[in-house]
């Protein structure tokens, strides 16, 4: 069974890269992107099973990025996360097509659990 490919998108570089590294250590193939534009470039060439996207980012926001990803890579499951999220925003995100959402700071076990669920969907 091949490893799950995960792309983390957050304008906080320290967060996305560290989280990617942690996921790598947990057995995933993970990459970090610091903007929506960078993420779009990456998915042009490569397919990811899961994308973890921060809702609030400069430039193209997380929700817009999700819509574009849905068009380019419809099979990719998306998990959103946010620093000021609420249940309301999370519910709205799921309605818009996200698999799930997480509120920062996240617990790595919760994230892995949601990734596995998304993969097995």
């Amino acid at each position, binding site marked *: 069974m091949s490893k799950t490919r995960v792309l983390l998108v957050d304008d*906080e570089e320290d967060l996305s890269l560290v989280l990617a590294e942690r996921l790598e250590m947990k057995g995933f193939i993970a990459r970090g992107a610091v903007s929506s534009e960078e993420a779009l470039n990456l998915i042009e060439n490569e397919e990811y099973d899961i994308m973890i996207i921060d809702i*609030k980012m400069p430039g193209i926001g997380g929700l817009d990025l999700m819509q574009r990803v849905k068009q380019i890579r419809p099979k990719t499951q998306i998990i959103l996360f946010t*620093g*000021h999220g609420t249940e309301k925003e999370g519910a709205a995100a799921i309605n818009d097509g996200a698999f799930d959402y997480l509120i*920062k700071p996240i617990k*790595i076990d919760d994230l892995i659990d949601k990734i596995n669920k998304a993969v097995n969907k």
Partner: protein
Amino acid sequence: MNILRKIVLSFLPISFGEQVAPEEDPGRYRKLWLRVVFLTAFVSLMPLIIMTFINYYQYKRVFEEEMIYPISRLTSNTRRSLSSFIDERRSVLDMIIRDKKYEDLRNQEKLTILFRNLKESFGGFIDLGVIDAEGIQETYVGPYELRGKNYREQGWFQDVRLRGIYVSEVFLGYRKYPHFVIAMTHEIDEGGFYVLRATLDMETVSRNILSLSHRPSSDAFLINREGVLQTDSRFYGNTFDTIKIAVPPISDKTEVVERYDDKGRLYILGYAYINQSPFILMEVTKPEEQMKNWFSLRNDLLWFLGVSIFLIILVILWGANYLVRHILEADLRHAKALHNIEYTSKMASIGRLAAGVAHEINNPLSIINENAGLLKDIIGATRDFPRPEKFLKHINAVTKSVERCSTITHRLLGFAKRIDTQIETIDVKHLIQEVVGFLDKEAKHRNITVDYHIDNYIPTIESDRGQLQQVFLNIINNSFDALDEGGKLDINIGHSEVDRVSVSIKDNGHGISEHDLQHIFEPFFTSGKEHGTGLGLSITYGIVQKLGGDISVNSQVGVGTSFTVSLPIKNK
């Protein structure tokens, strides 16, 4: 007592000062009340009082005139009768003395015939006599033997010598019963003079003249200038007694005056000085009977005035209280609304600030968390890592602190952000009992008593169950924190307003200072206790506001604290 207090409060401005905010002048509403009362009382009572007194004096004058006029007429008539009585007898004596010769009058037989004729023609004569210039009674006709009696040294003889005519006061004299005399001198041709003297019976005067006044409340009598009774009086005694009322001033006509006796009782005095005599005719009327109608009317007037004033004052007091209380309540509502606006605005600002802070902190927190997690992962994955437990201990301390910060930021966001509510029908009584049930063990452990006071009818409300649970759990938790072991919690559930249900949670704990009360719903405000984030009551406040309710708190240090949550029955 409560009813009495309510009645008193509806008329008097007792609680005005207690209701105003501390910075306001507590006397402002009392001054307003006083102004309203005095102004209204003045404009309503003055015309009433003036009209009543005008009526009073008009009626009084009418009654007095009705009473004084008959007295005046009666006194005048009696005066005329009395004057006529004396004048007639004086005139006839004058005619005799001019018509008859001295020799004839000195003749006993002729004098006897003359006296008999006098008695038959004019009543009242007792005797008739002639006295010479030396005062010796020369001839005499009458019931006594007075011939030869010498009057030279008597006062009346001196008076008649000087004035030519004399009417005496009433006296007893030799006759030993009241009488008076009329005497006049006549000069004789040979020089010298003689005196014709007649004695008149006072009984005739009393019977024929003074008996004109026959009413039981009135009395007619004669006095002399010194106030000595010349006839018997019904009110003031017998002849020769001195009356206890003042002798009226000299007047040449009939007078009627109002006077008060030594006991302060009113009497009406009609009097007249009888010309060329020492007599004063007195007509005294005690007006009780005649004035009975007047007193009755006067009492009615005074009663009407008194009762009217009392009722008007009651209405004025009630009206002024009602008016000022409404102004006060409107001012209080206005002040409260302003305070609420300020407070809501302040809370909204704090909410926005909190959301921003929470978001900005969450990102670095996440970075700290993930880096700490990565370190932990690396240690776990590295064989022969030196003293890994020490590193893991420190990393765990970091992640624990991150978790603690995370809890705070999540709560802050919960305070600031609106969360979708799930409206359902809730039995408040049941919900409160459920919440208290969460703390049952603690209550038993700390020996805290929880008492319920629930109105007979509490309607169900439409609201969010979970959020209300959070609200009441926060409040009851706070109350438990304030209570010592063995403390008491009173929970009142009421339906005093038509469209609301109120829940009051009152503890007898430490209480909250006035300063702390002003900030109690602000985020991060704590009373200095060791645990707690200071967000519980601010979140509670936000939830209650969002659910369309109100929350208020009253507290007194050392006595206890009471939180009251008022919730709408219908969710809007």
